[in-house]
């Protein structure tokens, strides 16, 4: 699904992210954990070519397409339809003057898909949202609902992998459980792969199969979630675990 080799993301002279290996197999959940400024979000965004001002070296293959060399048109074909993005601030990620249903319909039509009421309602119900919300504007729904709508977009377009950049850190704890619960259910029912970026080690431990720990742009440790969190080999990972209240 996602294969990354020797990825290096540079802004000017500063290397913001250096990831030797990152693989996300079918239906697998890989988490990138780290604190602010660790380069985890930049890594995720670079996989979909959403870091235009950065120089990127190394090899990135998403859904069989080499992101760095593919022509823009081919790249746009897989964005949303094969690999979907879920962002950190739910409301801000939705155009303020466009109703949710209109955005979904436009996205479906863009990828040559039918945009029927039925398909859209199904996507909404898959994320436990009332299809009536499709007529609302983003500022008329709550943070948790907006975030789940972003996931519904991915479902409607039939994405195989979701790249989630701190999907729940802007949400209240109770709402966070709701969003993560939806992601977990979709993975179980539809074999959806998930690349999750988060600073919350506890959250990651409940959902991730494999984990990468990043500090100041460098991957300090990676491996199966159970092992890394139970017996961390790198001191920074230990420090992260001990700091959990």
């Amino acid at each position: 699904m996602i294969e990354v080799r020797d990825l290096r993301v540079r802004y000017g002279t500063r290397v913001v992210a250096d990831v030797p290996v990152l693989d996300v197999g079918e239906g697998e959940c890989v988490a990138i954990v780290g604190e602010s400024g660790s380069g985890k979000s930049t890594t995720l965004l670079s996989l979909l070519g959403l870091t235009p001002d950065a120089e990127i070296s190394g090899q990135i293959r998403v859904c069989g397409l080499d992101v760095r060399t593919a022509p823009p048109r081919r790249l746009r074909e897989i964005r949303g339809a094969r690999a979907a993005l879920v962002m950190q601030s739910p409301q801000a990620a939705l155009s303020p003057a466009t109703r949710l249903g209109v955005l979904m319909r436009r996205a479906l039509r863009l990828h040559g898909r039918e945009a029927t009421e039925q398909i859209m309602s199904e996507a909404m119900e898959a994320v436990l949202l009332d299809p009536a919300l499709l007529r609302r504007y983003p500022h008329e729904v709550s943070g948790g609902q907006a975030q789940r709508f972003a996931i519904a977009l991915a479902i409607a377009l039939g994405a195989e992998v979701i790249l989630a950049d701190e999907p729940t850190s802007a949400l209240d704890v109770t709402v966070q459980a709701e969003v993560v619960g939806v992601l977990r259910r979709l993975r179980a029912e539809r074999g959806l792969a998930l690349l999750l970026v988060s600073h919350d080690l506890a959250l990651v431990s409940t959902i991730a199969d494999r984990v990468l720990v990043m500090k100041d742009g460098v991957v300090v440790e990676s491996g199966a979630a159970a092992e890394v969190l139970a017996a961390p080999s790198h001191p920074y990972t230990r420090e992260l675990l001990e700091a959990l209240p």
Partner: protein
Amino acid sequence: MTMLRAERVTLGYGKRPVVHDVSLDITEGGVGLIGESGSGKTTLARAFLGLLTPMSGNIWYGDKTLKKADLRAFRKDVQPVFQAEALDPRMRIGSSIAEALPRGDRARVRELLEQVGLDPDLAARRPHQLSGGQRQRVVIARALAVGPGLLILDEPTSALDVTVQAKILDLLAGLDTERLLITHNLAVVERLCRTSHVLFAGRIVESGPTKDLLAKPAHPYTKALRDAVPKLGGAPPEARGRTEAVPAATGCPYRLRCPIAVPECEQAPALRDAGGGRQVACHRAGDVT
């Protein structure tokens, strides 16, 4: 011991009440005010600081209400520790701290910086030149400058990375002042507050000793709050689809989300004693498994 108490306080901006008929004592050993966004916890904090006059009810400082109390003494005794934007971006942190001191003497500023574990030479820096953790320490230093008896902390660590947060909590635990801690983070409350009150849609739904409250929650909302926090290696959270319902305007505000709601919940439950210093506002408090 700083005597600060809210007595049946209703608060709001303009005519819209956000906090409804809340009574709360600042007792020994730290008081936690737990609530999610929109629960009114920051509004309550601002009322305790005298920044917001109640629409009805009173904030008592000692034996006088804040309106009549000697504000100079109050200002020296109660100080805030805010989260975001608590430092003037243009002022050097040394002068931000000095603002609290009568003649702004340099030595006291350096002393305060050391007390919060910062290198005194940082006094000349401006806030954007410091890390999140350092900025928060400066805010604490400024609050300590007037020698307060009570600190009112509003989400003091939620903007910080986990490792930095742990150190700030150690610093706060070491201070010998009383504290009213406002946060959504249960772990922080457990660490620093002996008693806690859970706030939902501007009403106290449960209060009592923090340890008991979290071990055996009596109110369904407290239980939902506790269970939603992911535990290392714990069970993955379940999605139930009712979490987003808007608080009910009549009756128990939580009833539209509550898994054990019954018709009786349409009458607002009063906050009544549940023994062991516990209070809860729920018709079915006993059945919360």
